[in-house]
């Protein structure tokens, strides 16, 4: 096995041959952007346990295998269809590359622009230049920097002012090649008073791979974005997915995060809130076997009258480990901030673990902020109550676990997605038919 240093050098050594095939190799500003990312990665390697924001998540597995970009576009079409939402437009990325053939953007209104990162570079590079790296910088941590250097494609979405999307856009991130690195950079702009619904689905058919997506989201004044993320990677996959959001005044950002797959998964959601904007983060993580699922959030109240609500639930079984690291920062200027954070965890086995760390940093004096955390097991009185009604013990435990988790599924407004999630939850906790 390689040391972290050896691994970093191996990635760096492979980079020059990869670089030529990356989009924008002929654009000097993008070259500079990538080089800055490469330097930051070179200086630090992948984040490690000494980094405060990574102290519970060991990325050693990324050093074991050298993941490499793949231009393989093969996919089992029948398998893929099981993940495609019907009542939605779909963008399909295979091994980190946009597939025009598999995407379905028919009848997309002119107010909704969806193109691959490569196409956006050809069509309007200047617009990309003004946004890229503006919602998150390479100094956030070295995985972001790694993404800046290595990303091979992505999706660029713009919703015109005052437009309300009639159905959601699903972005299907699919990895089919073994040991592939699927690094994407995605940009999303929701203009003034527009309303957008986006669903990210992360799946794979390969055994081991590394999916690394960075989303930069810009919400203009009065804009509304509902972003769903379903992370259902294979059980040997590594996943990193971050959404970094800039919220202009009176904007609303709603996020629903379902983390159910992967061997090692880290999700980040950071949002910067301007005056009177609103941020709602809901999440559910289900871990089993030796899964490690890390959810990292940061809500940054920069200006007055912001509202934030965060509610995450976790269910951890066998030797699974969950991490919930959530920070709410209320700047000196952010008076009348109203913020609540809640994290509830259910541990189903003695070997399961949750590291939960809510953090409130308040620099303003006129604010309303609260946070709460619970870690517990199933209530034995409830188990017996169900048994006394004829339900066997295993089903009783499944029913109660399902009920605990289903509270988060219930918050999903999109009925098609909700049905899909419900099926996934029932498959995980089989009980007597609903």
């Amino acid at each position, binding site marked *: 096995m390689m040391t972290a240093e050896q691994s970093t050098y191996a990635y760096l050594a492979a980079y020059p041959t990869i670089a030529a095939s990356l989009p924008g190799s002929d654009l000097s500003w993008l070259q500079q952007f990538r080089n800055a990312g490469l330097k930051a990665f070179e200086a630090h390697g992948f984040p490690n346990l000494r980094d405060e924001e990574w102290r519970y998540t060991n990325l050693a597995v990324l050093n074991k295998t050298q993941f490499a970009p793949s231009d393989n576009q093969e996919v089992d079409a029948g398998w893929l269809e099981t993940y495609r939402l019907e009542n939605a437009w779909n963008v399909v990325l295979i091994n980190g590359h946009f597939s025009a053939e598999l995407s379905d953007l028919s009848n997309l209104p002119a107010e909704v622009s969806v193109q691959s990162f490569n196409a956006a570079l050809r069509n309007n590079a200047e617009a990309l230049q003004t946004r890229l790296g503006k919602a998150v910088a390479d100094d956030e941590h070295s995985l972001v920097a790694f993404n800046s250097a290595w990303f091979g494609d992505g999706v660029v979405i713009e919703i015109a002012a005052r437009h309300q999307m009639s159905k959601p856009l699903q972005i299907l991130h699919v990895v089919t090649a073994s040991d592939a690195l699927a690094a994407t950079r995605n940009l999303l702009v929701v203009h003034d008073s527009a309303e957008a619904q986006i669903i990210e689905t992360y799946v794979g058919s390969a055994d081991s791979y590394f999916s690394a997506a960075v989303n930069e989201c810009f919400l203009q004044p009065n804009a509304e974005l509902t972003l769903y993320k379903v992370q259902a990677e294979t059980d040997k996959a590594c996943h990193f997915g971050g959404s970094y959001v800039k919220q202009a005044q009176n904007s609303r950002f709603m996020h629903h995060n379902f983390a159910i797959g992967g061997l090692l998964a880290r999700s980040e959601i950071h949002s910067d809130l301007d005056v009177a904007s609103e941020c709602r983060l809901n999440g559910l993580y289900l871990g089993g076997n030796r899964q490690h699922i890390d959810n990292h959030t940061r809500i940054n109240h920069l200006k007055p009258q912001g509202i934030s609500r965060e509610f995450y639930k976790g269910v951890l079984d066998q030797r699974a480990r969950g991490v919930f690291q959530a920070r709410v920062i209320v700047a000196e200027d952010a008076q009348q901030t109203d913020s609540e954070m809640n994290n509830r965890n259910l541990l189903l086995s003695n070997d399961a673990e949750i590291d939960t760390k809510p953090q409130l940093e308040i620099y303003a004096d006129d604010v309303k902020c609260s946070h709460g955390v619970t870690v517990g097991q199933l209530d034995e009185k409830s188990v017996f109550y169900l048994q006394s009604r*004829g339900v066997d013990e295993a089903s009783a435990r499944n029913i109660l676990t399902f009920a605990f988790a289903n509270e988060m599924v219930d918050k999903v407004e999109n009925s098609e997605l909700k049905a899909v999630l419900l099926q996934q939850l029932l498959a995980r906790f089989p009980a007597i038919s609903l």
Partner: protein
Amino acid sequence: MLSIKNLHVSINDKPILKGLTLDINPGEVHAIMGPNGAGKSTLSHVLSGKAGYTVTEGSVTYQGKDLLELAPEIRAREGVFLAFQYPVEIPGVSNIYLLKAALNAMRKHHGQPEVDAMDFLTIVKSKVKLLQMDEKFLYRAVNEGFSGGEKKRNEILQAAVLEPKLCILDETDSGLDIDALRIVAEGVNSLRSPERSFLMITHYQRLLDYIEPDMVHVLAEGRIVKSGGPELALELEEKGYSWLEGKAA
């Protein structure tokens, strides 16, 4: 139907029941009364299979089977129903889901197909009416935010849907005002049949004004110290329990 012989039960090595004997025939309603700490709730818990109780001596035979050998859910499927003194709140599980899961578990046990969704709704709605409950209760989480009276009514609703052979009512009257008590009692009375037996556990006589028992037993210091007809309950109401407690020795 149910035959309890010389039952001794301990909790953490502390003897609670000390030689309880009781026989209940099909269709009979038995009331067990007694002072606090006599072992009334222990009896209901042991019969329903709750963990934490050790039977050190004696036997419980239910319809020819050794009841104590059966898992709690098997007892339920075989027709033993416990109406809890303190019904549990289960957030996220709706009443209607629980009723359906319970009914289907029972049907499966008896080799019957799952209940048809429409038939099920018809049955449940008629029982809801019987207990003068609002249909909205069916779609609320089990007992969550229910008042004391609503919880007890909900227990009887479950009994009405599951149609047990032996119905154990543990302090079903506690926490009920007089109107709720009447509704619950009417619900119980409507379930009485020549095949169905009841074991009512209560501290007070007032429940027996509404549900007339065939037999009344006094449980004190872990065993039955006196048995009689409904008139015994009135006597207890008048004299209290203290005059009987010496008789346990």
